[in-house]
């Protein structure tokens, strides 16, 4: 068993990089990728923490469902991105500003 902290450092790194990506990248699909990174960070945590309590598989089950949900999110997100592309001719979220105060 590897030191638990080493899993967690990686997951924290992935999560933070996800955050940086969603704030800085001016592209909807890039943001989607950032979200995937963040979800994976959580997954890594869950799997790693499952090692602390090997009698159950709770963490692994959770990560399984996370993956399923990630699929759904990606599908819905992509369909929305495509629609926005068709209607606004742009993939840059900042350029979508019909809705603002």
């Amino acid at each position, binding site marked *: 068993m590897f030191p638990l902290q080493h899993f*967690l450092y990686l997951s924290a790194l992935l999560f933070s990089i996800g955050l940086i990506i969603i704030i800085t990248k001016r592209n909807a699909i890039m943001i989607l990728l950032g979200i995937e990174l963040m979800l994976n960070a959580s*997954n890594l945590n869950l799997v790693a923490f499952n090692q602390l309590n090997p009698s159950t598989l*709770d963490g692994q*089950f959770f990560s399984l469902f996370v993956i399923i949900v990630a699929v759904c*999110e990606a599908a819905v*997100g992509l369909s929305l991105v495509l629609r926005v592309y068709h209607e*606004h001719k742009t993939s840059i979220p900042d350029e979508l500003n019909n*809705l603002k*105060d």
Partner: protein
Amino acid sequence: MEVLSDKLELIRMSVSFFIPELILSIGIILIILIGLLKKESSTLISLCSLIIVSLSFWFGIIQTSLHGAPVNLFLGMIRVDGFSTYLKFLMDAGTLLTVLMTWRRQNEQQHLSEYYVMILAVLLGSHLLVMSKNLIMVFLSLELISISSYILTGFSFSRKGSEGGLKYFLFGSIASAIMLYGFSLLYGLTGSLDFSSFIHITTIGNSPLFLIGGFMALVGFFYKIAAAPLHPWSPDVYEAAPMPVVAFFSVIPKLAGIGILTKFILTLSVMSQPDFSWQIILCAVAMLSLTVGNFSALWQKNVKRLMAYSSIAQSGFLLVGVAALLPQGIHYMLFYATVYMLMNFLVFIYLQQFESRGMHEISSFSGVGRTNPLPFIFMLIGFLSLIGLPPTAGFTGKLLIFSSLWESLQQSGHAILLYLFIFGLLNAVVSLFYYLRIPYYAFIKSGESNLKTNIITFENFLGLSLVVGVLYLFFN
């Protein structure tokens, strides 16, 4: 395999407590089928949805009357208790009203069957969310609500609709990713997914990582109820979505979110060390929501955005009830939630009626109240209740919520509770200024309006019953 059969027996027994949700699940499939087979028959689809929601509503009530004591279902995945049953009852009622609102414009709505599927999916997710006992269930039902909501936002099929949908999606999925990370930390620190009985929490309850995880988990709930600072999506989404959906969003997911938040925070605060109080976080968020909601609303010109900020502020008020962290406070929060459901729909019914005449801006209401007094009088009552002026139930609700806050203040003596108390009341004054703008325009500003409505309309009938409700709850 003795154990397994026991488990299966338990699961089989759970089903009898699960009838409303089963009805909803079956209803989803049914409506998909009807949509595929009889595409043109919008009335049938609406009727079907109405029946499904009514059935769920009905069985929910039956269930309440049958089973008083809380029960754990599906091997501890969810838990049926009075709190969740009441919230489910409210959400069903709200969905019924939404369906009725949609009925008035069903011919304008494209993809009607999918629309109802999404509505029912949100409702199902909300049901599950308020019953959840397990982090997996929380995550899944929250995602069910969210995914359906993203799509519902896009159901106005306009440029604004898709933009709103995408923004909602981006914001929502990031919020749930943060929440999920929080969940994973909580799981790691407690070794359990059952948040209502985190096993090892007492030893670890005050570690910084636990606080970080707890707060990140809360972020997802704050996002769901559109509490500041996780609120910015809501005005844009409300503006983009169709009116019934806005009304729906402002009530059902919010109630579900506040329900799970309450359960979650109660566990956290019961389990954590006495020298740290989650109350402070709730108070800060409530104050922030009140401020952001009320002050931003002052500037709005679009009625939907105005109502969006209003709902942010109202979340603040609901949070005040939770922040008291007293059984009575939760009780009053439920009462306020009931009132909130009634008054919010009261306003939205008429906003939809007038939106269909092309009135999106507040200024377009100029002088309409003089030619159509009845709708605006009802609407005025709704606004008065939202402000919290007597003689409406909004007043009673706020009074009760602030009473419990006061009680909590006297018990714990946290200064922040006092600030919240004063802040909340002052904010009630501020809210007056934007809520009364629509009636102000309608009654006082002169404008050329040839708009005429009948006195006997479906809206007025519905409105009257809500007004009676709002007034009745005051004089209960």
